[in-house]
């Protein structure tokens, strides 16, 4: 395609400028905001990890003090879980959910903007801690009584409030997603015709809805213990610190599936496209995802095998933990079945998806070893655990999300990402990842403890730690390649067109990037993988036959200007600044809670701002200007 016509071919995605982004209620822009925030936090969280690796690269490391080390490993964990992987899931779900089910937006566009801004201020709150007395330093899990005893600085207060904020944002977003999926699907889009990614988003939303309130209560208790004199976790006053572990992991284990299920959904979209086959065992993949959702609530105490729960509880949770490997295994076999005998195209999204399967299998297998109580008692709090969860969360979730970025970047921006840089990125990341985390299995089995800022000479840990630090440098380089690829392709990438990968689902029927209203005509869905069935059919021997494109059908795209006088008014929400105002008010009021009694003035001011935002929101109509297609 000629470069000269480039600008003309990209669809308008609405007004530009900072204000339009602050007040946007467009699910696609909110998705991009989540994604860009996650990328920024990924760089920050990655740097934190890199400093941790530098400190541990040899015996008696001197790069960091014990205090700095505690802050960095805590913030690395919090950042990667809550500010990178969770928002990445929200980013893809926001952008793709309405398009994939044939809707023009989510059910509650302003609530969606509110969710993003609450998330944003939650991240800001967590990092504000660094400038007012140091970052949170009690671990991302904030075990009591340690988390209530560090009271001379406000670090763990910011932790408790920041997480509470992120939780509120996620609950609001999830209620929105569930309502959207259950009630706003295009005609004919039955539940069992939905893309697997949407199914996994639905299960994830239910997990968030039911798990976040539990840690919410725990965080209130810790915050009250620290600031208002309650005795929930004060053991000398008959408080029971073990309660925190139960509340935390009753959230924390479903959280693991909250992180991985959206990535599993993405892989379930990428593999069929690049194998040119439908997903093998669609209903098995869907029901395995639902099964994981239910079972995910029954395994939390395997994080607590060394806490002295007694043999009956330990046996029960060991069994439930082994059982949850079954639906996970079903998915892996179905993905392999999807690629089996397919016409494979090893584009970058496909490479990352295959990488996901391989790395996730390794992480899953080491996970099963944690289900065996005697073995787990040895592995507990050792680097073996660090190796395990990085294999599932980095090798698993993050590989899946990166596959998603390469796969849908053409849809988001209208341009392809560079395949050459993409392949460099993949191989560097795969090599760096394994160099960093595979040695940690050995270190952990040799007894190296987690969360310890240095180790003496003569324990034989130097070599593998050195390799791990080298690996983390390779990961850093792969990250730079990725960012370079994003920046370069955003400006100069090849024009993608609506359907660059010969895709199967509805998002490929509309222009890249999609117009504000997504669909000129709400599509009518007749099949699972509906777009594929519009393009191809099978002959008697089961071979693919390409169909003639239907003229004027969804595959042929026209801009709004082509409609001339036949412009049709549709319902599209107008931008609003009330969501960001409400979120800002809540953030201000919660900062005030930390600095009582004077802070109650700040809290009062914040509540006024929040009420202004919420009332304004309630009173203004969602659509103030007519919108024409």
């Amino acid at each position, binding site marked *: 395609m000629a470069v000269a016509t480039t600008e003309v071919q990209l669809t308008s995605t609405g007004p530009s400028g900072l204000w339009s982004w602050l007040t946007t209620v467009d699910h696609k822009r909110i998705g991009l905001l989540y994604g860009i925030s996650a990328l920024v936090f990924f760089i920050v969280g990655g740097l934190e990890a890199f400093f941790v690796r530098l400190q541990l690269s040899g015996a008696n490391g001197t790069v960091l003090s014990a205090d700095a080390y505690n802050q960095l490993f805590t913030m690395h964990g919090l950042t990667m879980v809550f500010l990178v992987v969770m928002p990445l899931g929200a980013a893809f779900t926001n952008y793709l959910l309405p398009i994939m089910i044939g809707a023009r937006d989510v*059910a509650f566009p302003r609530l969606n903007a509110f969710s993003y801004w609450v998330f944003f201020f939650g991240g800001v709150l967590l990092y504000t801690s660094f400038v007012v007395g140091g970052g949170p330093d009690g671990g991302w899990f904030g075990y009591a009584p340690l988390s209530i005893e560090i009271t001379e600085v406000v670090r763990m207060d910011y932790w408790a409030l920041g997480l509470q904020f992120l939780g509120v944002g996620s609950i609001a977003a*999830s209620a929105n997603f569930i*309502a959207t999926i259950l009630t706003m*699907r295009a*005609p004919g889009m039955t*539940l069992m015709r939905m893309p697997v990614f949407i199914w996994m988003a639905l299960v994830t939303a239910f997990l968030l809805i039911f798990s976040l*309130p539990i840690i919410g209560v725990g965080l209130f208790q810790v915050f009250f213990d620290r600031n208002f004199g309650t005795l929930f976790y004060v053991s000398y006053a*008959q408080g*029971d610190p073990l309660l925190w572990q139960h509340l935390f992991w009753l959230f924390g284990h479903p959280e693991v599936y909250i992180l991985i299920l959206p990535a599993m959904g993405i892989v379930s979209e990428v593999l069929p496209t690049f194998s040119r086959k439908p997903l093998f065992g669609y209903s098995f993949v869907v029901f395995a995802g639902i099964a994981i959702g239910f079972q995910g609530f029954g395994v939390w105490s395997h994080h607590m095998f060394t806490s002295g729960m007694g043999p009956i509880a330990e046996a029960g949770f060991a069994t439930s933990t082994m059982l949850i490997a079954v639906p996970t295994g079903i998915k892996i076999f179905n993905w392999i079945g999807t690629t089996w005998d397919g016409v494979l195209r090893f584009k970058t999204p496909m490479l990352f998806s295959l990488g996901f399967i391989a790395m996730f299998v390794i992480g899953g297998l080491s996970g099963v070893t944690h289900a065996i109580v005697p073995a787990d008692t040895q592995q507990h709090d050792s680097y073996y655990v660090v190796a395990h969860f990085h294999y599932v969360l980095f090798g698993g979730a993050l590989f899946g999300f990166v596959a998603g970025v390469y796969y849908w970047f053409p849809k988001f921006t209208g341009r392809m990402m560079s395949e050459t840089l993409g392949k460099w990125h993949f191989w560097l990341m795969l090599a760096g990842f394994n160099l960093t985390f595979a040695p940690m299995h050995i270190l952990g089995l040799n007894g190296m403890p987690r969360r310890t800022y240095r180790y003496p000479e003569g324990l034989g840990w130097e070599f593998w730690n050195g390799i791990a630090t080298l690996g983390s440098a390779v990961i850093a380089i792969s990250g730079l390649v990725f960012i370079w690829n994003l920046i370069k392709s955003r400006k100069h990438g090849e024009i993608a067109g609506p359907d660059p990968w010969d895709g199967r689902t509805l998002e490929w029927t509309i222009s890249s990037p999609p117009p504000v209203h997504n669909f000129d005509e709400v599509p009518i869905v007749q099949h699972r993988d509906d777009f594929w069935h519009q393009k191809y059919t099978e002959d008697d021997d089961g071979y693919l036959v390409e169909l003639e494109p239907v003229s004027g059908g969804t595959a042929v795209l026209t801009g709004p200007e082509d409609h001339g006088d036949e412009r*049709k008014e549709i319902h599209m929400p107008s931008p609003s600044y009330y969501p960001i105002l409400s979120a800002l008010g809540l953030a201000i009021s919660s900062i005030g809670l930390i600095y009582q009694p004077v802070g109650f003035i700040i809290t009062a001011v914040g509540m006024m701002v929040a009420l202004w935002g919420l009332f304004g929101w309630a009173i203004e109509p969602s659509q103030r200007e007519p919108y024409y297609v």
Partner: protein
Amino acid sequence: MSEAVVEDVLTGDHDDHAGHGEGHHDMTPVRKAAMWVFLGSECMFFGALISTFLLYRNATADGPGPAEVFDIPFTSASSFILLMSSLTMVLAHHANHNRDMRQARVWLLATAGLGATFLAGQIFEFTEFVQNGLSLSTSPFGSSFFLLTGFHGMHVAIGVLMLLAMYVMSLNGRLNDEEGMNVELVGLYWHFVDIVWIVIFTVVYLLQV
């Protein structure tokens, strides 16, 4: 969930709801689905608070225990008032459904009034408890009691505010707009808060004395 929502979920068919032109959904089933989801989330919230209370019901340290502070006849009376507010809520919903706005306003105000009376009773009760030596920082029992009942009281207070907002909206003739809260959603929330109180009254008060 209403039948319409269930039907939607099963069939993916929304044509019968599109009564306002192209692409404009009737938002009632959508909003109801979201409210049900939110209430599901609230179940876990109160579940965790009640579990904490049950763990600490005997952790009274040197402070008073349940039998020494609870005044069951008083709390029974305030519980009765709160439960009656569910009845007036139903009447408000029914009147609004029949577009009898004068009746609807009366019952909305009655519901808010009963809720406020319950809150006043709770404030009185809390003051009594503190005077009898049970506060947030007396014992884990006190901490968990006040956190649980306090959060419930906050839910009632938010419900009262929403009911009053409904009343003001009815004066402006905007009560049945297609956007925002409506009587049915506030009703769902209000009944939920009442049901949680039945559990709290049974588990926290009646079973502990």
